[in-house]
């Protein structure tokens, strides 16, 4: 277990506001490259992509960890396959306005997914459904709920929690909870 974390069997919820309600027929996921090109998927198109079922440990900055959670979704490697970019950074955007920033390399090479199932059932809205980002090697706020897109950029732009005092990178093993850690 990473330092300062404790184990939970529950699935606590951390969100800054209400849970958004997103109709699937209007849902879309967009990757925008630094030169303005956009790559779009509708809900049905997302479901048609090859899926993986990662089993991972998750660590929330509010101190709980949950081990061996199982998810189903699409690897970012698949979504990024045809995207041409030289960007180093990514800013994930969510329905409801939430954002979080990550180095692009933390989204690639089997480290991140867009997931739509949790423990064999469709992902509940309060846990980020219909689809959320899953980046389990970083604190869980980086796994943006209700994800709607990823903006690729050459500079690092702070996301929502990052701009109110949470750490820019958020590695649980180095206990990077707050700015300056």
């Amino acid at each position, binding site marked *: 277990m990473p330092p300062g974390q404790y184990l939970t069997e529950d699935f606590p919820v951390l969100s800054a506001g209400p849970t958004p309600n997103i109709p699937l027929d209007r849902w879309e996921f967009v990757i925008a490259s630094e030169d303005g090109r956009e790559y779009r998927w509708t809900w049905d198109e997302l479901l048609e992509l090859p899926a993986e079922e990662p089993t991972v440990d998750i660590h929330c900055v509010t101190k709980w960890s949950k081990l061996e959670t199982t998810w189903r979704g699409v690897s970012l490697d698949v979504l990024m396959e045809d995207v041409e970019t030289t960007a180093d950074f990514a800013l994930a955007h969510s329905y409801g306005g939430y954002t979080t920033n990550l180095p692009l390399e933390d989204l690639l090479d089997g480290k991140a997914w867009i997931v739509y199932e949790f423990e064999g059932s469709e992902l509940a809205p*309060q846990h980020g459904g219909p689809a959320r980002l899953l980046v389990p090697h970083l604190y869980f706020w980086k796994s943006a709920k209700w994800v709607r897109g990823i903006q690729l950029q050459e500079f690092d732009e702070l996301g929502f929690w990052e701009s109110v005092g949470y750490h820019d990178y958020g590695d649980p093993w180095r206990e990077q909870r707050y700015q300056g850690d």
Partner: protein
Amino acid sequence: MSARIEWRVATLAEFRNETATARTLLLDVPGWPGHLAGQHVDVRLTDADGYSTQRSYSLGAPADGERVELTVQKVPGGEVSEYLTDVYSIGDPIELRGPVGGWFVWHPSRTAPVLLVAGGSGIVPLMAMVRARRQARSRAPFRLIYSVRSPADQYFSSELRRSAVDDSGLDVTTVYTRSAPPGATREPGRIGGADLERYGWPPQFEPTCFVCGPTGFVEKVANTLVGLGHDPRRIRTERFGPTGG
């Protein structure tokens, strides 16, 4: 990059029992940098073998110099809350780091109407806002709706009764879920849209809404506020955990 928020040693100066299962801790924290209403701290306990564990607790009042106030609800079987409410004694040290959180905060310079909705111990950061408002002599229109099981579960009872009278522009409504005091006009029951309409602000007033408490309570209240027409961007939430706490 800003400076690291350091761990500091806090010692218990005084305590007050709020209910049979909740205790307010007044802690002296040398070097405390001050904080905003709504922020929290991380508390770290370490035992003789070096095992340590951390939890978050909201700051219940504006800082009084180097003294800060937390109120902890005892969760049955809870590792940290049972220690803080039953064992932790005057003069004992704990480690604390903060203030943390820059979103669930109210600044006394704001004048927009505010709706505070608390479930159980979720009153703690909202009480800090009520107290910060009073301290700053703010006239921002405030309404507090406080949901508790029964009169015996209410924190800060006498202060809230006084505030409801003395703090002009502050309305306080207590909603009882299991048993109401004699003479109450509202039947005991969970908070619903009718309560939020009646004791809150109309969405047209564009209040900033702060909702805090157990996760299920916050989910329900925030969704109901959205359903009543409040802009989700004006609803700020803090979820404490699974059921109570």
